[in-house]
């Protein structure tokens, strides 16, 4: 069950692939099917359920492409 | 008598500059006058890039080409930027893999080449520029394919020599795309 999720601003993504290496649950990858307005291949999440909202991906993204949200209900279980 | 003014335009990274240089080298090999001039957009990275190539048996004056004989267009913004400059009855080569759904002006000879698609089929998307070059040479006959291959052989030495084959294929496919 996902602890949160990330929102990708695809148009800002430069497809640099940096963030993908830092996701502890390995759910990030470039979306080879897409090309954004600037000609880059943007990021996508392969398995959103696994996201732990750790923000590592977002921290490493030079272009502030990624917003990270934590699901609050989860907190109550804690 | 050769007297060709050409503008090649696209994104940085599409090999636009190299295409122009190859033509200038071919001219130099034949002791024909030539001038190559690059122009980069205000964005250093990933912006637009274009170059002007003049090949002439007379002496070359202005490096700036205001009315090109031919135009090789590698991406959408470049078409908008340059097509109106093209001489009446000039040749317009368009990479239709990336340039779609754009109105094209009248009064010029249009050649549509899905260069990226062809290049991908050849197994190396980077040779899209050579596909366009093949088409350009086939139509204008400014130089033969051999002239270009000769330059490539001079430049691609060592490891890079292995790339000549695919470039040759790309030239061929480009030629085919406009002669079929």
């Amino acid at each position: 069950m996902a602890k949160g999720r990330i929102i990708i601003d695809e148009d800002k993504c430069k497809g640099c692939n940096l963030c993908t290496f830092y996701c502890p649950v390995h759910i990030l990858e470039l979306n080879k099917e897409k090309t954004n307005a600037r000609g880059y291949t943007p990021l996508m999440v392969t398995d959103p359920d696994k996201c732990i909202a750790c923000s590592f991906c977002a921290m490493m993204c030079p272009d502030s492409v990624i917003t990270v949200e934590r699901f609050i209900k989860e907190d109550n279980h804690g | 008598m050769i007297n060709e003014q050409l503008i090649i335009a696209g994104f940085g990274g599409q090999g636009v500059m190299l295409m122009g240089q190859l033509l200038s080298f071919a001219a130099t090999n034949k002791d024909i006058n030539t001038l190559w001039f690059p122009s980069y957009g205000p964005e250093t990275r990933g912006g637009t890039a274009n170059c002007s190539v003049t090949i002439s048996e007379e002496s070359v004056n202005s490096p700036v080409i205001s009315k090109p004989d031919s135009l090789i267009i590698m991406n959408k913004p470049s078409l908008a930027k340059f097509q109106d400059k093209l001489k009446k009855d000039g040749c317009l080569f368009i990479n239709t893999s990336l340039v779609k759904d754009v109105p094209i002006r009248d009064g010029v000879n249009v050649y549509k080449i899905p260069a990226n698609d062809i290049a991908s089929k050849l197994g190396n998307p980077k040779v899209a520029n050579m596909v366009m070059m093949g088409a350009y040479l086939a139509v204008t006959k400014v130089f033969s394919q051999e002239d270009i291959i000769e330059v490539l052989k001079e430049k691609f030495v060592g490891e890079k020599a292995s790339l000549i084959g695919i470039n040759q294929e790309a030239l061929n496919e480009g030629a085919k795309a406009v002669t079929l």
Partner: protein
Amino acid sequence: MSNTKIVYEKSKALEDVHLSYCPGCTHGVIHKLVAESLVELDILDRAVGISSVGCSALNYDFFTCDMQQAAHGRAPAVATGIKRFKPDSIVFTYQGDGDLGSIGIAEAIHAAHRGENMTIVFVNNAIYGMTGGQMAPTTLIGQKTTTSPEGRTEAQAGLPLRIAELMATIPGATYIERVSVHDPKHVMKAKKALKKAFEIQKNKQGFSLIEFISTCPVNWGMTPKKAVDWAVDNMIPYFPLGVYKDKLAGENK
């Protein structure tokens, strides 16, 4: 959906524009840390940033605070002019290793010497990015650049300068630290250092400089991830991370 909390988003100290950096260049990461620090310390609305000359020359368009674009190397002098006239402003420069370490070393040293109450964000990527990859004073021995095509040699160009170490000897400087942004842990550490520097300025406690180990994937000729790994393997051993001067805590290191 309503039960979510945003835990990471683009800083409001950054404009909503495309950054001019190449894909995966860590200049962008460092920008975020500057932006977040200004917001978190509540000093954004009195900040003036100084863009220098390098790949970051255009960052006057990226930060939402007041900005001045300085001549190559002279950002600390420009900052001095602003800060002396407006002592309550928060002034930072953002400079590369060519800008600060080469042409501008005098201005950096003398801003520290006078104890100017400002913060220098120093981005060491061991190369001149903007101009296409020439040798910088911090280029490592053996590193190939367009002006050291066979790799930098000591005989021709000397041993790379260590800026944090050099600046730490200046009696007027308050805080000097070298950090890296090669993984999330170090990003967090780097941010802590930068916030500390800005806090020192906020408290009018003087000059601070944070040196960031950064990458230049394009001119190093590597993918962004490879570049980050190269920095860890090659730069950090020569440019050790850590606090080089902390006047407020007595001199460390």
